[in-house]
């Protein structure tokens, strides 16, 4: 059964279309990620699902509920981590979690939550003295203390250092292992690849690509790049067959090919025969990050509101 079902969702602010005809499903128990640059409509989408905003049109169902009309029931069953940090600096970590726990009918054990987010040793510290990563982990604690079926994490690691991000990843992976459904938004492809079982790349309020990271990789990452050092122009005697498809810039020669093997064969025999030094050669398959950047730049090059 679907935990979330979104169909033809539209939302605009002052005539600017933030989300346009958006449709997707999230299955129970999966970690679903919305990936996209700033202004892609990720937060708008999540805040409609959370019940903070009203859709202009389209239908939204979260845990079988309508976020507008059944907000009270929805809030009992979901946990939130909003995009911006919102904590009272005067309270201690433990007081903050306790204050949230009492708002839920059957909250989780506070001591267990403290251990889960790795803040037990700091439980009596004032929130105002915590680092950015610690504050974010505390907010995740507030998101899970009500023992929710569904957790929304809006850009949980934006602005954090790499170590703090890793710690939060581990924490999110553990949440998913416990069977919670997770909806995550992010602008980092590495984060989405590490955490999400399925993802949608959002650009300009629309989904540009959707699927499991592995499938997207297979569908979209169709080219490899062969690269080696070359000074300004191709070396003398370079194989004529490859010369038309080889470009030279910034001290590199590059060939972009679906299947790099035949070209590699030609290059190798040429280098061996001519005694040319090819020790700088590398072959890289396109990765999802490249695909993501490509989709973002393609879409953003189009005029606002254009259909794909």
């Amino acid at each position: 059964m679907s935990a979330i079902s979104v169909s033809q969702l539209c939302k605009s602010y002052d005539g600017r279309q933030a989300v346009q005809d958006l449709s997707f499903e999230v299955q129970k128990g999966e970690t679903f990620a919305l990936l996209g640059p700033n202004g892609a409509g990720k937060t708008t989408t999540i805040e409609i699902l959370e019940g903070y905003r009203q859709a202009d049109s389209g239908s939204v169902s979260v845990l079988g509920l309508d976020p507008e009309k059944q907000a009270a029931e929805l809030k009992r069953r979901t946990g939130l981590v909003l995009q911006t940090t919102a904590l009272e600096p005067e309270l201690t970590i433990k007081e903050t979690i306790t204050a949230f726990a009492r708002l839920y009918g059957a909250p989780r054990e506070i001591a267990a939550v403290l251990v889960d987010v790795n803040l037990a040793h700091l439980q009596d510290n004032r929130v105002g003295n915590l680092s950015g990563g610690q504050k974010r982990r505390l907010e995740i604690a507030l998101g899970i203390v009500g023992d929710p079926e569904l957790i929304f994490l809006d850009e949980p690691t934006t602005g954090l250092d790499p170590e703090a991000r890793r710690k939060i990843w581990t924490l999110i992976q553990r949440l998913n292992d416990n069977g919670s459904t997770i909806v995550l938004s992010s602008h980092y492809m590495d984060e989405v690849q590490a955490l999400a079982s399925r993802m949608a790349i959002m650009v300009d309020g629309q989904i540009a690509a959707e699927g499991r990271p592995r499938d997207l990789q297979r569908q979209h990452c169709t080219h490899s790049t062969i690269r080696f050092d070359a000074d300004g122009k191709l070396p003398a005697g370079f194989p004529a067959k490859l010369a038309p498809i080889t470009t030279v810039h910034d001290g590199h020669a590059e060939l972009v090919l679906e299947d790099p093997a035949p070209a590699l064969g030609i290059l190798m025999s040429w280098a061996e025969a001519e005694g040319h030094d090819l020790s700088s050669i590398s072959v890289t398959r396109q990765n999802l990050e490249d695909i993501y950047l490509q989709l973002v730049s393609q879409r953003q090059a189009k005029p606002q509101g254009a259909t794909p």
Partner: protein
Amino acid sequence: MLIQEAIHQLRLFSRRPAAVFFVIAMPLVLLIVLTQLFGNEKIQGLGLNTAQFYTPALAVFGVVMACFTYLAVSTATARDLGILKRVRGTPMPPAVYICARIIAVSVIAFVSLVLVIATGALVFGVEIIWERAPAAAVVAVAGALCFASLGMMVTALFRSSETVQAASSAAIMPLAFVSDIFVRPSTETSEWVPLIGNLFPLRHFSIAFQRAFDYAYEGNGFALPDADGVVYSILPHMGVMALWGIGAAIIAARFFRWEPRAI
């Protein structure tokens, strides 16, 4: 949930030294300074000692600092920090959260009021007329609710904690001077000062509360016949406070926003 949230709000207040100073200590300091400044003797034309006048006046000021200024500024600050928005994402009903904040500031106001009156009585020999305590309590509760309502209105009309802070101070400080709080009424005051004061709820709050300490009158405090038998009633004052309070509540409910201003 309501009581727990009110206790939570009281804990937050206790951790904010600046707020504790302005709400709890400032009225006490003013009471001591003003009484020393003017000397604790009979005020001409009023028949009261300096402290007998300033004690209820500054008790009212403390209530207003808690219910109006602190409520408005702390709520606006919580909104700026995104805390109000976050609270909306929990199962706590919004009305419970707002009521808990109002209960919390009312408790703070009560503590401030009791401290001012106790200091007046113990240090400056202010006479407490116990039979008027119920009337004084009714006036204090009405004033607390009226100014809490005004505080929420200011938070609703201004979008950041800085502007809320500025607006609430700009409203209260001048009014306190024309509302028989900082300045003792005297025969030399021009006639328009009380007229302006009477348009706003603060003077009605302070006069109605001061009557409970005014031994020039007799009676239980709700209706006070003076020496000539003219009955002085607190009802008109309560009426003005009710009008302002209800009006402010309607405006607050209409314009209140939970989300911080978009950056």
